[in-house]
């Protein structure tokens, strides 16, 4: 398959997954806020700040909003076009990637993503964000899940699928660690037991994991949640589960037996998977949860870069010209594309 196509499929799915996760995170936290007793603006800021920090968007946020309250934060994360990681930006980017590989997608898959995009740009969406945010986030989540379902039932299990799986699970692993990391930014740590329990159950709910967790352990504790969301072998949003799929997808693409490697992406993934397979929750807390999660995120990024190097850039094979995405994103390229006379 074309390298550019592999790259676009990978990003299309990553962006949908990102939007889905953000919708979960915002919705759950907004609901959690309703349980909170005192709602003065300082407290609200204190509440949302960690979420901004954990999604890694503070640099974009601060200059735009300064002294922001709840509403501003939510709009920033939800439909601010200036935030490249807002839900609507992610969906627009997913669609943009889909457009460039339209011929590879089933009609149903394209239509679902396009319909989601049209929804995010509609008056109705605008109204819902203000009046009934839960409905809005539910629409996003449902559509993302439908997208996933259509993809899974209309995509052949070949390289197309492997690159999509790769993108989805790398993104999912990353977002799970970021949800967990929200705790690290809470002012004064989550010390009082009641708000800690509330907080950790919110994280579980963001990951759709509350039910699954309860089946596994009755009391919600920091240690229990981290154990479940990082090391569970069976829960589909746990880091270990995701990296297992990343590893399997990479080896299906290259044809190399698992447990061995033929490129940096496989080597990085294999080492990370071994660490997760043989790791325990104590390691995370011994190192400091934030540092531990941060290190994981760094390793996900290295895997992503290595995938790009191995399958898209291919520097060892081609020295002639830079990869397509760099070229086609330039303003000159866009101009020339537009001015190709179509008779």
């Amino acid at each position, binding site marked *: 398959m074309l*390298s550019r196509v592999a790259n676009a499929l990978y990003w299309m799915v990553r962006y949908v997954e990102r939007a889905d996760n953000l919708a979960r995170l915002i919705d759950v936290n907004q609901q959690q806020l309703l349980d909170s007793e005192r709602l003065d603006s300082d407290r609200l800021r204190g509440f949302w700040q960690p979420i901004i920090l954990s999604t890694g968007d503070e640099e974009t946020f601060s200059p735009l909003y300064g002294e922001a309250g709840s509403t501003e934060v939510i709009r920033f994360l939800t439909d601010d076009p200036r935030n490249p990681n807002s839900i609507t930006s992610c969906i627009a980017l997913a669609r943009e990637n889909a457009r460039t590989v339209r011929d*590879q997608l089933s009609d149903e898959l394209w239509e679902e993503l396009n319909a989601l995009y049209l929804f995010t740009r509609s008056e109705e969406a605008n109204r819902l964000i203000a009046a009934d945010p839960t409905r809005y986030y539910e629409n996003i989540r449902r559509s993302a899940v439908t997208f996933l379902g259509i993809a899974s039932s209309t995509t052949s299990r070949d390289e197309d699928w492997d690159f999509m799986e790769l993108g989805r699970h790398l993104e999912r692993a990353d977002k799970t660690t970021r949800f967990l990391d929200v705790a690290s930014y809470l002012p004064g740590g989550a010390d009082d037991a009641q708000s800690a329990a509330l907080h950790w159950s919110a994280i579980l709910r963001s990951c759709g994991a509350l039910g699954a967790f309860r089946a596994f352990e009755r009391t919600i504790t920091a240690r229990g949640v981290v154990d479940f969301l990082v090391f569970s072998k069976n829960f589909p949003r746990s880091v270990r589960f995701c990296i297992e799929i990343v590893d399997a997808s990479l080896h299906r693409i290259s044809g190399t037996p698992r447990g061995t490697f033929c490129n940096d992406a496989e080597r990085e993934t294999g080492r990370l998977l071994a660490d997760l397979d043989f790791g325990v929750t104590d390691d995370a807390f011994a190192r400091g949860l934030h540092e531990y999660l941060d290190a994981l995120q760094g390793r996900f990024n290295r895997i992503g870069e290595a995938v790009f190097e191995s399958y898209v850039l291919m520097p060892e094979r081609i020295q002639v010209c830079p990869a397509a995405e760099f070229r086609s994103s330039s303003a000159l390229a866009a101009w020339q594309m537009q001015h190709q006379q179509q*008779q």
Partner: protein
Amino acid sequence: MEMFEGYDPGRFYDEMFDASGAVRGHCAPLLRKFAGIDQKDFLARKANSELYFLRQGITFNVYHDEQGTERIFPFDPVPRVMAAAEWEHLEAGLSQRIVALNLFLHDIYHDQQILKDEVIPRFYIEQAKHYRPEFRGVDVPGDIYIHICGSDLIRGADGQYYVLEDNGRCPSGASYLLENRNALKRAFPGLFDEMGVRSVDSYPRDLLNMLHHISPRRDESPVCVLLTPGCHNSAYFEHCYLAREMGIDIVEGGDLVVVDNFVFMRTTRGLKRVDVIYRRIDDDFIDPVVFRKDSVLGVPGLMNAYRAGNVALANAVGTGVADDKVIYYFVPQMIEYYLGQKPILPNVPTYLASEEADLKFILGHLPELVVKAANESGGYGMLMGPSASKEEIEKFRGRIIADPRNYIAQPVISLSRAPTWCDGAMEGRHIDLRPYIIYGEEVKIVPGGLTRVALTKDSLVVNSSQGGGSKDTWVLRH
């Protein structure tokens, strides 16, 4: 019948009704079908067809719009119907024309016999903007240059079809032809029952067969790709659509590399050789080594691979000389010169500004004429004399005098009209027809073509960039 009540065919040739207002025989069954649909139902179905286009993403980008607005190409659900005999006549005329155009291009890029025999003045060829002298003597597979031609046909007040222009570089619109049929079938399935409408499904297959036919590699199944300028191009939807229907890869310039005069695409498993490129990029941008140096859309070295015969291009390089509007003037002569036949389809009467007598006539009659730049398309670079302001006319007068080689003029042809739903009523709107002619092992023309309609009242400009829409085109079996 109620939607057609009070319909006025006007003083034009109407595709559905004759001058007395009686329905034309071949349209009668369709009109009866519409009689069974009430207006409310009609509107709901029409809205449905529009939703289909929007959901499929069959849209074009509005340039210079910061919001990145995408619009659908307006679709009118009342089909344009052609009788079987009418289409046979067009088919014969178009086949004759594409054969002659290809013989002409081969001649121009080899012996130039037609110039030596002074059928066409040498000056016109040598000054044609899209003539590529550097490709003289280069052989192309099967001696075919224009593999896909989109010739625009119009019908005058006398009911006679004329060829308005030949688009022999990268004609677009075929996907709309196919999607119009899909949309109409979905929204108005009942219309098709027992009507004997000829299918248009064969287009992608014919296109792919043609691409296979011109492959330089005979030993194995050729690898064909569609080369697009990219997703910001207005025809991008079409590129994806056709590539998918044919089951070939769609590539951008950056996906291809030339190594030792062979073309390859970059895949996740390394480089894969490419044999045939259906290119939707103009000559100017296709290879920065040979043509425009600043092109980032093309493939450096592609022209060397092409000259070496290692890759085939559809359409060939240099076909633009044949759709220069001055050269168009000579197509009837080409048909007689190369084929010894009378042209089946006439040209629109045309005046060449670089001929002294014609120039005098043009300058004396600007308010009555349509003036066109020789190498523009899409309705640009054009003066519609009767509706133009004094300033516009004077502006064109200056341009024509300064550069007569690049201008032609034609009388205004009042294009035929077809009933079209316009804001609550059925009204006559001017239309044209663009058939798509494929020239591979044999000439194949998908029945009908794309009917474009000028939605603005009294407008004669059907281009989508200027307020045009389209209709499904029916060719009847009997």
